[in-house]
């Protein structure tokens, strides 16, 4: 800025410019900058407008019906006369699929991010990144169509065997690892080498037996499960996790990259393996950034409409038992999308405004989580640069 000022004064000495013209130039500069500013501020105005207009149509609902019914009852009969507007089951459905997708997407996403930032060589990474971008680019309605037309019939017809195979494929490697590590940890306190090895082998055999029994017992239970409807919370959770993955991977990869080389090299110098370096030093250092990534990913799942609308079954009740992912559920977003068409005809009624109340709820949740994740990222940047 200082350089610019010097330059300007030089120019005014070199060329004789009338005071009027200089004033005009200054005015033009101010005008230009204020135009730029107003465009930039436009975004903030939009955000305020969104809050205002959604809230404006949400408030009448609470004026008509009060708060308690909306949050505590699960009787959702908006079309009745008089209607019932208990959204508890719907809120619960939203939370359920969000949690389900997070349980799939968070471990996978963080593992993939670690892999991308620390394990894979650059040449492979070049091909992995477009895959993630493609996954992010596929329109939600295409995912929804896949969930409804391909995955749902598959689940309904051969859900049990699918669950069994998923259990075997996913869990057996981890069980094997747990057996090896567990027996090693338990025997590590034994000083005498020969006795230690003997008990290690014994424990190994014992644990493997238990693991195999567990695998087959749970597998056969899963195999016997009959999924009554393919459009259920599990289906939606799986698809939503695909959609949340790209966000989680790219944001947490950024967080991992932000952890400097020196920390990594310090850990390697102390003799740690790569896994130990990542788990014990890099992950703690990047943990807040990863948390931000998880929040953003979860928000993507919570705010997603088309997949849940098409493939969640849209039945407004709390599953029995409460963790039964094989039942149809209904979410906030799907309710808004599905009911607005009919409620629009009766603008001004509680039936219309309740949907805006749901929208406001979503908006507030997304605002808070966005705010929190942003704070977290800022704080991480500060601590890392402070070191």
């Amino acid at each position, binding site marked *: 800025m200082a350089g610019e000022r010097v*330059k300007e004064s030089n*120019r005014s000495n070199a060329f004789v410019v009338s005071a009027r013209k200089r004033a005009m130039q200054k005015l033009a500069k101010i005008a230009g900058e204020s135009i*730029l*500013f107003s*465009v*930039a501020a*436009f*975004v*903030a105005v*939009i*955000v305020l*407008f*969104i809050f205002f207009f*959604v809230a404006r*149509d949400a408030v009448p609902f609470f004026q008509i019906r009060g708060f308690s019914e909306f949050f505590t009852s699960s009787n959702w009969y908006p079309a009745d006369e008089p209607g019932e507007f208990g959204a508890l089951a719907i809120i619960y459905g939203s939370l359920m699929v969000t949690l389900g997708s997070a349980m799939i997407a968070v471990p*996978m996403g963080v*593992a*993939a991010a670690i*892999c991308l930032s620390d*394990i894979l060589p650059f040449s492979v990474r070049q091909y992995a990144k477009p*895959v993630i971008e*493609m*996954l992010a*680019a*596929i*329109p*939600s*309605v*295409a995912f929804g*169509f896949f969930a*409804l037309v391909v995955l749902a019939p598959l689940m309904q017809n051969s859900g049990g065997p699918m669950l069994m195979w998923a259990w075997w494929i996913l869990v057996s*490697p981890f069980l094997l690892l747990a057996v*090896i590590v567990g027996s*090693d940890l338990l025997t*590590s306190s034994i000083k005498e080498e020969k006795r230690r090895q003997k008990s290690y082998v014994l424990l190994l055999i014992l644990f493997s037996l238990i693991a195999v029994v567990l695998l087959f017992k749970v597998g056969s239970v899963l195999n016997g499960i009959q999924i009554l409807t393919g459009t259920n919370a599990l289906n939606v959770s799986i698809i939503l996790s695909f959609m949340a*993955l790209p966000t989680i*991977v790219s944001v947490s990869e950024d967080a991992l990259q932000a952890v400097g080389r020196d920390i990594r090299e310090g850990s390697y110098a102390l003799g740690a*393996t*790569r*896994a*130990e370096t990542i788990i014990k030093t890099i992950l703690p250092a990047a943990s807040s950034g990863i948390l931000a990534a998880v929040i953003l990913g979860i*928000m993507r799942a919570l*705010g997603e*409409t*088309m997949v849940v*609308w098409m493939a969640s079954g849209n039945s407004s009740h709390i599953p029995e038992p409460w963790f039964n992912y094989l039942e149809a559920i209904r979410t906030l*977003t799907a309710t808004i*999308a599905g009911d*607005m*068409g009919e409620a629009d005809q009766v603008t001004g009624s509680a039936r219309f405004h309740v*949907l*805006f109340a749901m*929208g406001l709820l*979503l*908006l507030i949740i*997304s*605002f808070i989580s*966005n*705010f929190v994740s*942003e704070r977290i990222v800022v704080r991480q940047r500060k601590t890392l640069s402070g070191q």
Partner: protein
Amino acid sequence: MNIGTRKILDRSFTAVGIGSIIVMALALMVVVVPIVSNGIGAIFFTGTVEHRKMLHAEFNRGERQNLASEVASSERYRTKVYEMLSAFDAELETMEPEKKAQYDSKYSQVKTALHALLGPLPGDMVPMLTRFKYGQTRWEKAEEKLHELLYESKWDNSNPDIMGKEYFVSRAVAFEGTSLAALFPYVKNNIEKMLLPEFTVYWGFITDSSVDSHFFGGIWPEIQGTFFLAMGAMLFAFPLGVIAAIYFTEYAKPGFLNSMLRSANSTLAGVPSIVFGMFGLAFFINTLRVSESKSVIAGSLTLAIMILPTIIRAAEEAILAVPKTYREASLSLGSTKWNTIATVILPAALPGILTGGVISLGRAAGETAPIIFTAAVSVGSAIGLADVFSSPTPALSWNIYNLASEHEAAAQIRHVQYGMVLALVTIVLLLNLSAIVLRARISKKLKG
């Protein structure tokens, strides 16, 4: 822990990471492969003579003489079926009332199946809906309908513990001893001669408008609607986004106001897409009244504010990636700040800005939730450019939902749905692919 275990842990850790990337790639494959393989079937398929009849009648396409000779040769085989039907009609008249009643319902099922397979039977009234005017236009559907004609589907509910099982009973057995019994083997043996299947390439799927809510015809109205909506959104969002990015990178001074504006940007990026739809309805339509009800312009505006944050971020990154030396060189030549931005920085950042724009265009084309309440209708013809201010439009994303979930015969037009999904995914992925290629070029160029 001993060193061996540590090594195993280390390797398995690597395996988990690589495994999850492979799972992601597989997930992409699992979703894309059925869409592509089935979606192609909307254009390349084995079409029957009914398809060519339909094309001629509805779109005035195909050679009249060829078609006439084809129809004549298929009619030769069909007349025999119709003769059998009338023979059975006559036989029914002579039967005792109880026996007749016994056959009546089964006979009407046969007639319905034949109608679905071959089109209206002689003596039927001319159907009101186009879907009933033709037989099966696609060979694989014709085979399904043939099965329906030959076998009656029944449900075995004898075991109450498990779900009912479907099983099939031959219809020929039911008509044993009547003149109709000969019909079933005859149709089975001569179906190809009656329908004349041949490999068909139907590019009209992309360029035709739909006939009778997508039973026949193509998806042009949807493609055009998607194009209008996405381009409209870009028209609003791109200039605004680039200007805002210039402000943020070149003019904004760090401070409370600036950080507020930035938070606003990321808040806007995090708003659920359905809430944009509600906002569009409440603001653009109910308050500003940009149009009476749903319209392309309202949808475009809604999509525009949805993609605005993405464009701003991409443009900011592109501008920041321009080397500092460019700026300094320009300023040292005595150029003003604005002149530097307009002549040096923006041209250098343009490819990067365009990349962000292209990705946003794809996002706008693929989004459904914001246009549900603001722009989309399920049935409709392609609209003219002049109508964008007043009329809603069908759009790919919305119509995929509509055909798959709300259409009265969703299971019968799976090929159209797959074709639509493929069209949408192709548009979006091509846009993204071009963005990826563009970006790779830029990074190469900047590296020198």
